[in-house]
């Protein structure tokens, strides 16, 4: 496959209404299939909405749940990435993404970094994922990041080192921090991160952020596909529910990585050694603590 036709759908889920959201997903899957898309991407927690809070157990699905299998059957050869509350067999709940295709859930990626500051309270309701792993697809290995994961550089680096040729970030990012110059801190940080991932790691990135409101939060959308040079291939408007098709030239990845061989020179053994030393080695002196010999 030389070109990937990716459909991005920045919908606004109904909070807690899995049945209605499933129908919305089904309609979008039919649309994407008609458009001959290879991959359709929905936002974070697209089947449930974001502020699930104490109702996590009531919206959770196991990866073999008929809701997911049904959507996977509708998808047929179309690959679909969606967000759902995952009910694990040990009773824990995860903020997860499913990659579904040809009648089954092919991969599940759990959110690694749960925001628990300011307006965010995810650790109260979800368990943290402990494995970041790209999965095989007809267009190459694909790694998923879920919202705040994308703001931790180590996560994108790990995907790259594990062979990802495409990084898909699904998000439920609320608008906040409007400045005098049209800046909005929620947007700027994700834009910066995705351009950096694409350019540094030499791969295309797909970012799908939801729209709509929940309580006082307004999710800003602005979904985007970025090529390995950091150039925007497609950008959806902010605050509007919208879906669109975008074509990614998969051969641009190899070209970008020839020009800037970050992957070849990523030195995972060195990173591992240094992380091991930081975590397991002798405690390092804290600069400015007053405990150092002068």
């Amino acid at each position, binding site marked *: 496959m030389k070109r990937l036709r990716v459909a991005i759908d920045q919908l606004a889920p109904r909070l*807690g209404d899995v049945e209605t959201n499933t129908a919305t997903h089904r309609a979008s899957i039919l649309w994407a299939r008609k458009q001959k898309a290879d991959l359709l991407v929905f936002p974070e927690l697209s089947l449930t909405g974001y502020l699930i809070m*104490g*109702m996590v157990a009531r919206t959770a699905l196991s990866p073999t749940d008929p809701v997911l299998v049904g959507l996977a059957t509708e998808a047929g050869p179309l690959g679909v990435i969606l967000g759902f509350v995952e009910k694990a067999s040990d009773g824990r709940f995860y903020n997860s993404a499913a990659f579904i295709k040809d009648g089954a859930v092919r991969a599940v990626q759990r959110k690694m970094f749960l925001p628990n500051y300011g307006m965010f309270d995810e650790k109260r309701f979800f368990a943290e994922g402990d494995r970041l792993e790209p999965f095989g697809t007809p267009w190459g290995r694909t790694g998923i990041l879920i919202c705040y994961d994308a703001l931790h550089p180590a996560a994108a680096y790990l995907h790259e080192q594990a062979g990802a040729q495409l990084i898909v970030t699904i998000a439920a990012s609320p*608008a906040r921090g409007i*400045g005098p110059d049209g800046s909005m801190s929620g947007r700027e940080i994700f834009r910066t991160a995705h351009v950096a991932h694409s350019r540094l790691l030499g791969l295309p990135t797909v970012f799908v952020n939801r729209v709509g409101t929940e*309580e006082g939060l307004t999710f800003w959308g602005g979904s985007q596909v970025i090529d390995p040079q950091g150039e925007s291939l497609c950008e959806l408007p902010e*605050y509007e529910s919208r879906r669109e098709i975008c074509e990614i030239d998969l051969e641009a990845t190899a070209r970008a990585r020839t020009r800037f061989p970050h992957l070849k020179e990523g030195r995972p053994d060195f990173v591992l050694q240094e992380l091991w030393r930081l975590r397991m080695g002798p405690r390092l002196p804290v600069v400015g603590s007053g405990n150092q010999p002068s």
Partner: protein
Amino acid sequence: MNSSRERIDLTLDPFVAVGLIIDFLAGHFEKKGFSDAVLGVSGGVDSAVGAVLAVEALGGSHVKGLAMPAGSSDPASLTDAEAVASAFGFELLLRPIGPVVDAFFDGSANVDRMRIGNAAARARMMRLFDYSYEHHALVIGTSNKTELLLGYGTWYGDLACSINPIGDLYKTQIRQLADFLGVPAGVIQKAPSADLWPGQTDEGELGFAYEDVDQLLYLMIDCEYSFEALVDHGFSAEFIRKVVNRITSSQFKRSLPTIAKVSAKTVGIDFHLSRDWGT
């Protein structure tokens, strides 16, 4: 207060801020199954901005303003409210609350102006929520961030509403957006007042200017400056303490009533359900 202190630019990109709030209002009304809004229009800048945002989100025919003067209200307030309504194309209904307040206190002794002011604010709240029920219209609140943080409002009075589009905007930011939206200059420039008694002004009652307290609140709340950092920035310790005291002593106005925990799941403590569930 040190007049030489560096002033922080609190302005917002008005297109982004207004666009965000309009989307928020339109989305909320659609989700909740309401197409109409009602709000008190006092003739001041906050309710003017609230009304214009509602008109932009819902259309002028879906917004009703209630002008609710008390016996002591300045007649110029009503004139300003009418000017805002005619400029932005929504209907203003005159619903005086003076007789309600008079009847309420008939025969009462020791009625001071704070009691009258609170009763007037709560009489307006009753009018708005009665209109809400009768006409299936959501009540839009217009307390701004400065007032909310300082607790400058009547609990279950003007603080009561269904939804508040301007509660995360400081007073100085409201003035900026009002100018952008085309609110009449006279409404923006006049001294802010709860208009509860003749000659009352917010700044006279609070003892400081919005321009100053917005700067302090922004650094203290949004930027999490410490007391020492605020003093270093040029605020007097007395001013900072006064504002901190107002914030801490008014937290009850920003919260549900405290409930004694007895069971495993308690409303307001560990019953975590979004009010937007199912929408």
